[in-house]
């Protein structure tokens, strides 16, 4: 039975709010550092982002057949001009094997991903499983374009989100992750107050987020815009870099470079945290869809 259902939040990854205490790398206690005036990025820099979208295309009985579109690209800025240097797009058909068997004939040529579910089909649970598949597929595409870019260029590469998706990325001394999401917070108690009350133009001490599933990185909070009178998270990003002494040495410089990236302001509701370079990648990918 054909259908056109776009599930809520089908454009982004699912995240769970939680606190996972991190390990401080710079000396205790957790502190804040004024960064001084922004500095222009030295030389060319590239931005990497991915997008995802999925919709229910049909139901085989009660089993949803999900169509997904994931894409990622790298846009490199030379001077003040940015241009797309790499992009990749994948289309997926996701569902239980018996549902795919029926749908694949109607949609030939699209890669299928079967849901490995042992429990009986539940339409909502199947959608949750499909979403996880889409998240992984997007991560794979992002890794693919990131690695491809790195094979051909050694410029700084700013990734939207966490570097911890890949040990290759976390080992790269010229990659930076800029996470807008704060669903997982690195501190609790008074340190959390210090962390979330970061003044504009300041960074937090460097810490190492704790996670069993993720590659180790160094991270720090950076307040891009003054949050007074606004939300706690307004203008706050988490910066990630390779877990090396070099990253510690460059943390202030990287922060100043990112402060310079506040302008131009992105044409997006998340403009306080969305760097224009990342926004440009998103716009490119959406326009290509």
């Amino acid at each position, binding site marked *: 039975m054909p259908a056109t259902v776009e599930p809520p939040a089908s454009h982004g990854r699912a995240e769970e709010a939680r606190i996972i205490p991190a390990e401080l790398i710079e000396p205790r206690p957790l502190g804040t550092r004024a960064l001084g005036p922004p500095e222009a990025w030295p030389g060319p820099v590239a931005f990497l982002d991915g997008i995802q979208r999925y919709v229910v295309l049909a139901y085989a009985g009660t089993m949803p057949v999900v169509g997904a579109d994931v894409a990622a690209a790298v846009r490199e800025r030379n001077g003040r001009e940015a241009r797309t240097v790499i992009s990749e797009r994948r289309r997926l058909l996701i569902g239980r094997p018996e549902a795919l068997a029926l749908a694949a004939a109607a949609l030939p040529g699209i890669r299928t991903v079967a849901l490995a579910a042992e429990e009986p089909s539940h339409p909502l649970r199947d959608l949750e499983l499909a979403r996880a598949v889409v998240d992984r597929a997007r991560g794979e595409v992002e890794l693919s374009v990131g690695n491809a870019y790195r094979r051909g260029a050694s410029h700084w590469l700013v990734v939207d989100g966490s570097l911890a998706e890949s040990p290759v990325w976390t080992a790269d001394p010229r990659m930076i992750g800029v996470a807008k999401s704060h669903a997982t917070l690195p501190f609790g108690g008074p340190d959390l107050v210090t962390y979330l009350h970061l003044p504009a133009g300041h960074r937090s001490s460097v810490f190492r987020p704790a996670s069993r599933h993720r590659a180790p990185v160094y991270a720090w909070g950076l307040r891009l815009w003054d949050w007074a009178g606004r939300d706690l998270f307004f203008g706050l990003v988490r910066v990630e870099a390779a877990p090396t002494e070099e990253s510690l040495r460059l943390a202030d410089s990287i922060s100043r470079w990112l402060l310079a990236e506040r302008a131009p302001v992105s*044409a997006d509701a998340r403009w306080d945290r969305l760097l224009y370079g990342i926004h440009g990648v998103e*716009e490119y990918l959406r326009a290509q869809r």
Partner: protein
Amino acid sequence: MSEKPVSPPVGRVVATELKPSTPHQFYFWTSRESPIGIGAIVRVDAEGRTVFGVVTDGFAYSDLQTPMHAVIGADGDPAGLEEPTRRTEIRLYAVAVLRHIPEEPVQPVPLGVVHLAADADVVTALRMDAYVAGEKPTAIPVGVYAAGGLEAPVYLDADFLLGPEAAHLNITGVSGLATKTSAVEFLLTSLFQTFPAHKGRIAALCFNVKGPDLCFLDQPAELNEEDRRLYARLGLAPVPFDKVRYFAPYKADGVNLNTLRTHEALAGNTEPLLWGLREVLDYAEVVLNRDDVDAKADAFIDFLAERVVGKEFEDHTLPRTFRVRSFAELDEFFRAIFAVLEEGGRGGGEVWRTHHIATIRKIRNRLGNISTRSKGLVTDDGEVNDLPWGGFEDRGLYVVDVAGLDPLAQDLVFARIVSRLREHLERRDLGVDHVVVFVDELNKYAPADGPETYVRKMLLDISERGRYLGLVLFSAQQFRSQVQRRVIGNSGTMILGRMDGDELALPGYSTMSPATRARLAALPKGELLVRHPHFTQPVFIRFPRPAVLSGREGIERFPPRVELSFGEAVARRLRALDPSLATSRVLDLIGGRREEEVRKALNATIRARPDQPLPFFVRCLGREVPAETVRTRDVVRPIRTSGDLY
């Protein structure tokens, strides 16, 4: 289908619900560095269809949602750190369609790749392919279209510029910046050099209405390399006109010419324009106040023209036979009538041959005034020196300088010359098949408002019927809105130079896009917007400087001489016929002679142009110069519409 494009793509057509493509308009985007500009001609290639269009408007915008974000991004400091990434920005252009290939069915412009038009594309886009080639091409170069480093000649169709299909050209623009005069001079050069032989012979007659504008059309200008290149691109030779004759009336002294072209080196082809009673009487309605010329006055003028002037007139009431050939003889004739009426007196002396004495007095006064107000143009003694009616040369340029004339005399010159042109063209005995008449300051001679004048009617008549005769009006003015609409409307070809902003804001220009109007308001010298019947949309072109001296340059190189004494002026006029003549010799000859006698002899010599001017002049001085036999006008009267006595 058209040939494949030769230039790389510069854009792509976009169509949205808010900005859809139609059969006559479309939009395309291009890069920020693209050479596209307002007026550029582009071609769109899509499956099975090629579309040509001209860019009429341009838009640029970025992804900035609100200006506030720009302020926030700069921390409120315009001089702050430059944004490290240039904002995404679009260049979107609106295009008016010039031509579809195939023409049918008429469909919206497809989504396709946009190229800048090359030479062949411009020919096709402007539909010039119908007349630039073939067995009998009729293309007249008017300038080059230039955009994005490409340059292509633009041609007008002689059939639509000089008739019979359409005709006339009107040019509008502000003084000094629009290069109206230069444009006409260049176009006349182009016409004379490229007018096809199969279309017949052509001449031009220009009225110089202000200063020295058209006084040096036979003198070469110094052109720069770019101008020479443009001439070569258009297939023209940068040379001045070689068959130019200037006509200017005398000043009141009857020997110094009333023109700024009085330098001795230019005297060879500068002649006096001199008319007598017959020439004026035929156009009496031009120079007489309309209120004066009631039915009775008109009847008396007709009586004079048909029965008296140029004929032997006898009346038993008059003491002798009269032969009226000049204003002086006419006055004698009037005096004789008044004497008769005064003698007849006592009730019976108020009417002579059915004409009331008041009417006769009125006409005598008005005609007398003409010779006074037009002194220098109109002579009392009947001498005439006129344009070479019947002997116009092919590619000949005749300039009549009326800049220094009284407005009434200007009207008389316009009316008589244009009417004579019309008569001769109707009879096909002018010597050429087409005559271009150039009139500047059209808002003065054919104003949109104000009383109906003879000159305005005459200009309207040319514009409405001239093309059938080969009589073509090239006209110019500062403000098109101030010119009689029908005169403008009948101009098949319209040219706009640099325009006044207030004029452009008028409804008459509302069909142009804001960008086109903005470009017109700042158009550099040498660039024009041309509308021609073959062009679906007007196009911007560039033309080279005329190969002739401008008025300002001419005055510097050939400064007009100060007004000469009577004797020296006579000597100058004679030296124009024979440069070897010594001034002192002429002064000796005319010493002690009456000025009227000398003037008469001089004009007779100028008119006759003898091989030996001095002996001829001496012979004329020694006896009464015979008057030229005045031929009665036998055909066309100057424009007189039925129902209108004037």
